[in-house]
């Protein structure tokens, strides 16, 4: 008798389809919601809500938790099973549920599930496989996009323009820094003799940065606007720290360029040796198209309109030359120290008399989030390696393409070793998955920490990234003094990697706009030229071609503290 009884694959849901209340308390089904959530979702009870506790949801939709892990329910059965098993944060599992509970809700009463059952019965065997996870992520991402998209913002500008203060004040006004901490910073900065740096201390946390009053490394944090979740990267402005700034800017989607409006300061930053130009060129070469220019310290010039317009026109001209479209650049007068025009529209009459545009926060909100290539194979560029508690170690980086889940195996190149991802953290919250565009921290096991350093790329084991020492690239030269010859030693900045390299061969010079070959095997390259060269690095670097991955194909060349060229990888040898 029991031979033809499908015990293992038995779908117990059939038994409960009739809203059978034997063995289930009515309370469980309908009233297991806290008053707060119930009040919010009263009418929408049938439709999804991310806040409803997982347990109630499960019983309502007819699946008993006690059935074990692989209980199939309907078409997206695996999702539910997965959430039960992983026990991830309520946020993610609650998020998974709505995606499958929505179709289920109307079906439960009508017993439409039965129709789906035959097709889903074989899935239990596969439910542990990747197929289930794929659906998981895509659906997840849809859900999340329906919410607030993630935006990576980098703050750049000349040294002492007020980047850290501006952002620190913004965070304070948004409530991410509580009053006591702010008060503590004020006291301590006054004691250290740097009273005006109180807001900057929110982002500059190392002792040395505070002592000297400079940002040395990119400070990372997050905040939310009305329609976006923003990962903020505060870049250093000093010439010496540009390599660190490049790492931050390479991960960004949009940028805020901060300029100092005070007399003389703007000019100092804008001339040839200043960082205003270099930073703007760098972010443009790294693929950022949208830019907000915060004309800071306007309170020092008494919010004068002519000064603002003077700066705007000069910058506008330069940014257009750099390649930014006029429609993608926005100018906002602000004051980081006093907090005017940051979060809310300013009330200073001197300003409102002639400026009626958006405040800085509103402008950040208005940026368009870029499309993420979730379909491409997984790529994560490591920007930091450290040992956290527990076994294994943590790597931080931005996912450039694809997605990742806990438990998956990834391959690290160039060490060419596989490891397992034990945990994922996004903005101090543990997650089970993450997709392209997220700046996450992965806890990995199965590999020696020595082998990984900043600049490695974690990728999909089935489609690994290429590693080479020699590659061909098309570069655009900036204003350089020294002409580039064969054997020229440069510093290659590719995402988070910075490697010394030499220009092995000058293959040809191309016409700036048409791209046709002007001269083969030139003797040397001078400024403004567009050329194809072969570059050889000292150690192997993991790279992708530009045509495969737009984000991963760009790099910069620097020499003696200034950027000489930006390029894209065309061929790997």
């Amino acid at each position: 008798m029991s031979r033809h009884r499908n015990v293992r694959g038995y779908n117990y849901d059939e038994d409960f389809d009739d809203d059978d209340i034997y063995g289930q308390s009515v309370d469980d089904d309908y009233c297991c919601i806290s008053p707060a959530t119930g009040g919010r979702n009263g009418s929408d009870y049938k439709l999804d809500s991310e806040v409803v506790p997982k347990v109630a949801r499960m019983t309502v939709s007819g699946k008993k938790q006690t059935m074990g892990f692989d209980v199939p329910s309907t078409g997206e059965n695996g999702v539910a099973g997965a959430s039960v098993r992983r026990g991830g944060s309520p946020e993610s599992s609650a998020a998974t549920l709505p995606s499958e509970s929505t179709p289920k809700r109307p079906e439960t009463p009508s017993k439409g599930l039965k129709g789906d059952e035959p097709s889903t019965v074989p899935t239990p065997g596969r439910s542990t496989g990747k197929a289930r996870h794929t659906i998981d992520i895509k659906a997840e991402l849809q859900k999340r996009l329906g919410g607030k998209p993630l935006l990576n913002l980098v703050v750049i500008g000349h040294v002492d323009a007020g980047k850290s203060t501006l952002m620190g004040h913004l965070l304070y006004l948004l409530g991410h820094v509580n009053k006591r901490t702010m008060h503590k910073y004020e006291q301590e900065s006054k004691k250290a003799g740097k009273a005006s740096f109180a807001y900057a201390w929110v982002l500059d946390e190392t002792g040395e940065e505070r002592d000297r009053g400079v940002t040395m490394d990119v400070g990372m944090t997050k905040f939310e606007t009305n329609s976006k979740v923003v990962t903020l990267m505060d870049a250093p402005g000093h010439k010496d720290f540009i390599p660190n700034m490049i790492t931050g800017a390479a991960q960004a989607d949009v940028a805020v360029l901060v300029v100092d409006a005070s007399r003389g300061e703007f000019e100092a930053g804008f001339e040839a040796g200043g960082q205003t130009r270099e930073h703007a060129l760098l972010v443009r070469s790294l693929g950022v198209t949208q830019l907000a220019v915060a004309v800071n310290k306007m309170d020092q010039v008494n919010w004068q309109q002519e000064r603002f317009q003077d700066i705007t026109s000069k910058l506008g001209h330069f940014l257009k030359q750099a390649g930014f479209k006029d429609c993608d650049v926005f100018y906002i007068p602000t004051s980081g120290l006093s907090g005017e025009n940051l979060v809310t529209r300013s009330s200073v009459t001197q300003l409102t008399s002639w400026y009626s545009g958006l405040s800085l926060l509103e402008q950040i909100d208005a940026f368009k989030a870029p499309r993420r290539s979730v379909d491409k194979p997984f790529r994560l560029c490591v920007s930091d390696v450290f040992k956290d508690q527990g076994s294994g170690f943590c790597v931080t980086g931005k996912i450039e393409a694809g997605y990742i889940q806990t438990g998956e195996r990834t391959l690290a190149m160039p060490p060419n070793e596989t490891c397992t991802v034990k945990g994922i953290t996004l903005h101090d919250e543990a997650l089970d998955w993450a997709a392209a565009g997220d700046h996450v921290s992965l806890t990995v096991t199965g590999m020696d920490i020595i082998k990984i350093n900043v600049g490695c790329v974690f990728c999909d084991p089935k489609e690994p990234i290429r590693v080479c020492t020699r590659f061909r690239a098309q570069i655009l030269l900036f204003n350089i003094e020294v002409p580039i010859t064969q054997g020229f030693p440069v510093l290659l900045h590719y995402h988070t990697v910075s490697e010394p390299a030499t220009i092995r061969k000058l293959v040809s010079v191309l016409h700036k706009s048409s791209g046709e070959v002007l001269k083969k095997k030139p003797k040397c390259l001078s400024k403004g030229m567009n050329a194809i060269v072969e570059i050889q690095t000292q150690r192997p670097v993991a790279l992708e071609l530009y045509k495969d991955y737009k984000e991963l194909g760009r790099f910069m060349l620097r020499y003696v503290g200034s950027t000489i060229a930006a390029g894209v990888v065309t061929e790997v040898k």
Partner: protein
Amino acid sequence: MKLLHKDIEKDNAGQVTLMPEEAEDMWHTYNLLQVGDSLRASTIRKVQTESATGSVGSSRVRTTLTLSVETIDFDSQACQLRVKGTNLEENQYVKMGAYHTIELELNRKFTLAKKSWDSVVLDRIEQACDATQKADVAAVVMQEGLANLVLVTPAMTLVRAKVEVTIPRKRRGSCTQHEKALERFYEAVMQAILRHINFDVVKCILIASPGFVKDQFISYLFREAVRQDNKILLENRPKFMPVHSSSGHKYSLKEILTDPSVTSRLSDTKAAGEVKALEDFYKMLQHEPDRAFYGVAHVEKAVDALAIDTLLISDKLFRHQDVPTRSRYVRLVDSVRDNGGTVRMFSSLHVSGEQLTQLSGVAAILRFPIADLSEPEDDSSSDED
């Protein structure tokens, strides 16, 4: 190096007796030796002795051998020169034609005999025996997580130690990992300094970095020195000099050697002179490209036109080439000298020499512009990598 005896005849054959005194002299000797020369020096040979009873014993005997040079090996890190060849002269322990490897030792004279002594080689002997310009500078180029400890002598740049550590970046809320890792990094660099730098010989120790790493490191160094009561460091405190550089990689050495504060402090070292010459070449290449040439073919054409003002040539080209190639380069050098131009020999161990080698090893600044040469020449010279 001490020149003890020189005996060169009219047809340029002859012999020279030298005594190397320091490690750098080994480098000079390496550049002097050619395959086919004969080298006479004192060395140790393992000899098999057979006693009357038939038992074989081996003993090490010190003897003077004359070899015909076949292979030359130079270890730049240890500055050891080993020469292998066949025995030319009768010797009580070694048969004629038997192979032997001589390891040249400091403070032991050797005699070098060549069939032809050209100007380049004679120049080098003079340079090696020159008592002036023996400034030794030690430099530490560093950035966060990377440090190169380099010893710069007139003819060589030796990387004595390289420290590479991954330093975690600061994160929201916790900087302790960053600071602890930095401390460990400084500790490692300090150990390297104590181990590799000979404080008696070195005149100056440059600490170079972008940003504030150098200042932090120097304060760490002396704090530890005081704590550990390290007399050597405390005595040599004035020798440490912070300098700015753009990165922690080896080629940043060029920048610090041309830094004005460094050159004012030290007398003009040869290394700095070479860097300056290369800079001049690049400047000329930028402003008047027709007056700056590189590549053997181009430079030869310029030589034929008697146009060369300054010739920059790497000593790698003269080392152990077959005779026709070598004489080609020697001819270049001689003709430039005859026409009143200056020849700067770049040591291939220096950073500037490495860059020149990448640039084909020979470059020239001309007196007057010569129109750019035809393409076919171009292809052949840039194809070799």
